[in-house]
């Protein structure tokens, strides 16, 4: 890494671009088989994402959480770890930030917003640390533990806002009594809300600026610091990193904490900039989409930024696609899944497009080991 050449850049972009292209083609075939018009669908999709100021605004609004969960998965990949837990870390970030957002009422925004975001980062970081510590101390594989922790986080978050039951079950601690039977938190106070760059109807908030800065911070951390060197070395060669004197256990925990912090930050920004409250149905698939984003971005922070932007535009254009062409916006999920399949199995892309692997080329898609 570290060094830059146009050929290398081209080579690293080739597989993701072809994966996207192939996913769109296969998506079109599926639509065609279902009797839909793929041209109209893609036209609607594009116009929905970029055809209007509101389309652009939606794309940008959806960009930041995808970008941050993508970075979360990517940093773990750099250290050779597969973080499936961005979803749970996102949830913990949401809960921590919402708690700060509703419980501190006499605070200027200049303090309250950063405090609430930091709380979200902390929540994710702590939740990310758990699988790291479990892996180092017991050898439990992070894929298994992060999946388990996703359930725990989702159920815990659900409990905090539980509206109570008619048989006298106690409501959760963050439940908003004003919402009556609906399980949700009260809205965060105004001082905890991330300010808008463009107000309603666009509702583009400053969180995107923070997310973009985070790209640069992560790129610096991974490629320009000794910490990044240690993370990457552990990811590339476990034994050589021991030989090099790297504290392998600590590095694994650190990587998981960073991954958790990024996903937690995504949860905080989404809560404080878009939803302003928490309800169990929020969050959706953004944690899992982070996996696709990270792989599509080849685990490079800048690549992750581009990939997240692309996936955000798909998400943003879905509604207009459905309206214009009658194709269900569920096809977006199909395309996402196809992209993940193609980019996770570059051999398929190489085979279809007859791309030879240069002998000196490093494998850019991380290999996931199940060995622990």
């Amino acid at each position, binding site marked *: 890494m*570290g060094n830059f050449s146009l050929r290398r850049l081209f080579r690293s972009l080739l597989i993701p671009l072809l994966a996207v292209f192939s996913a769109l083609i296969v998506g079109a075939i599926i639509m065609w088989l279902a009797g839909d018009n793929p041209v109209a669908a893609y036209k609607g999709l594009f116009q929905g994402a970029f055809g209007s100021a509101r389309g652009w605004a939606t794309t940008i609004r959806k960009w930041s959480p995808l970008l941050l969960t993508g970075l979360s998965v990517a940093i773990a990949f750099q250290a050779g770890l597969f973080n499936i837990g961005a979803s749970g870390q996102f949830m913990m970030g949401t809960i921590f930030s919402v708690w700060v957002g509703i419980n501190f009422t006499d605070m200027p925004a200049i303090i309250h917003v950063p405090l609430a975001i930091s709380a979200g980062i902390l929540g994710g970081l702590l939740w990310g640390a758990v699988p790291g510590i479990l892996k180092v101390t017991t050898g439990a594989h992070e894929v298994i533990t992060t999946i388990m922790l996703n359930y725990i986080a989702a159920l815990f978050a659900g409990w905090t806002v539980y509206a109570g039951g008619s048989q006298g079950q106690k409501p959760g601690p963050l439940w908003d009594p004003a919402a009556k039977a609906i399980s949700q938190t009260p809205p965060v106070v105004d001082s905890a809300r991330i300010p808008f760059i463009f107000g309603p109807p666009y509702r583009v908030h400053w969180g995107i600026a923070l997310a973009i800065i985070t790209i640069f911070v992560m790129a610096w951390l991974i490629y320009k610091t000794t910490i*990044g*060197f240690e993370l990457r070395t552990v990811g590339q060669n476990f*034994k050589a990193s021991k*030989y090099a*004197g790297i504290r392998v256990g600590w590095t694994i925990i650190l990587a998981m904490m960073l991954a958790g912090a990024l996903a937690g930050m995504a949860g905080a920004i989404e809560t404080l900039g878009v939803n302003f409250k928490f309800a169990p149905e929020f969050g959706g698939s953004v944690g899992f989409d982070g996996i696709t984003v990270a792989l599509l971005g080849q685990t490079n922070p800048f690549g992750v930024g581009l990939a997240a932007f692309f996936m955000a535009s798909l998400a943003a254009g879905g509604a207009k696609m459905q309206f214009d062409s009658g194709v269900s916006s569920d096809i977006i999920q199909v395309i996402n899944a196809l992209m993940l399949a193609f980019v996770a199995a570059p051999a398929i892309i190489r085979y279809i497009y007859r791309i030879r692997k240069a*002998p000196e080329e490093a494998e850019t898609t991380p290999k996931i080991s199940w060995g622990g």
Partner: protein
Amino acid sequence: MSNTNVPALEVKHITKKFPGVIANDDVNLALNKGEILALLGENGAGKSTLMNIIYGLYKPTEGEIYVNGQKAEMHNPKDAIALGIGMVHQHFQLVPVMTVAENIMLGAESVKKNGLLDIKKVAQEITELSHRYHLDVNPYAKVEDLPVGVQQRVEIIKALYREAEILILDEPTAVLTPQEIEGLFEIMKRLQAQGKSIIFISHKLKEVLYISDRIVVLRNGKVVGETTPAEATQEKLAAMMVGREVILTVEKKPAQPGEVVLEVKDLKARSDLGESALRGVSFKVREGEILGVAGVQGNGQTELVEVITSLRKADGGQVLINGQDMTNASPRAITQKGQSSHVPEDRHAYGMVSTYPVADNLVLNTYNLPPFAKGVTINRPAIIQHAEELIEKFDVRTPSPLTRAGSLSGGNQQKMVVAREFSRPIKLLIAAQPTRGIDVGSIEFIHNQIVAKRDEGVAVLLVSSELDEIMSLSDRIAVMYKGEIIDIVPRAEATRENIGLLMAGVKRGEKI
């Protein structure tokens, strides 16, 4: 019978280009029927590329291959096997948990009418083959239980089972003990007597002179000469391989031992399998001397080095470096506080990160120290400059400091590791199998560097399974046998015979 003048295998004008490298450059080669042809060359000379082309693993950029005079089109190893070409790779392609018969039928399964595997029939054929060539392999033995030499014979049977007439043996002796090598040569002679044609790839001059009928030397992808054992000498072959005169013996002054640098007291440790691998090892290494640790592989040498460098935990005993107790200290403390260097036995696993550029590998254990790091930020210009200096000084052949280390030849990878480990100010050098699997030119260079370190006053612990290496470099020779140092012999009193006996576990003065 076809015309016996037609070569069994002929390659004509083979050129193979990789981006930035020409691995084979207009290579012509003919293998006659019933001949043992040695293909000699340094690592990176293009031997393996050529063999992979013949075996259908690579497609040549230009050129043609003829088998028995017929032009052959090979797209994959299956085509090669169908044409009667068999290959025994340097790293065996066997499934350890399966039996010999299962391994051999893998990909060429024999099936009974009811659809089940016919292991009996395969086992019978193996026994026949084994008998005909005196290979002595039990078809029902599990591969993981077999010694390396026998595993290699399984690979040979695998090729014979597929009716190979042409056998390619890629560095077959690299993993064998001296006795196993002799056994292999007998098998090769027997195969030859039965009309098989063999290509024997090696960079070991003695072996090539001993076994082959004809020797072809490759250098930088080109055939640079052809000779026979009758005409050639070791010196001549080495010069052809490297392209210059090579001094095969190491020149060194008498040692001037000083203070004790490394002291190991009653060291005990377990192997990966949990068995006792070190059973109380004690010795001292002084400034300015080389202590060579000889022994047949697997007698605890690997564990000894790993415990001293803290890559493995000691169960008992002490490691003292410069008088300080460093038992089970962190690996970083051993290198930095203990001022020691370690050339690891397995360079791919421990010594380098093959996906990293050469420059990054050259700071693998010093990346956190100035000038390579300022606080937490990495100083890339300093790392590149450092790399350029070491590449020059240690003659590492790489297109650039940013080339991926994994794409270098084995000898150059090892020179890279040596460059890193020898360029720091150190008091202790631990070199484990420092010249394993590398070419003559690089061996000469690394040997001279080790002696130079000794002359600077560094204490050197040299572990090697090559007796020649131990004999030519060491000032004292410790012999390991079953996890113990069976004896330590001053170089002047050591002969191949008495060290050989110690390696077999026979103590001095003991009757056999």
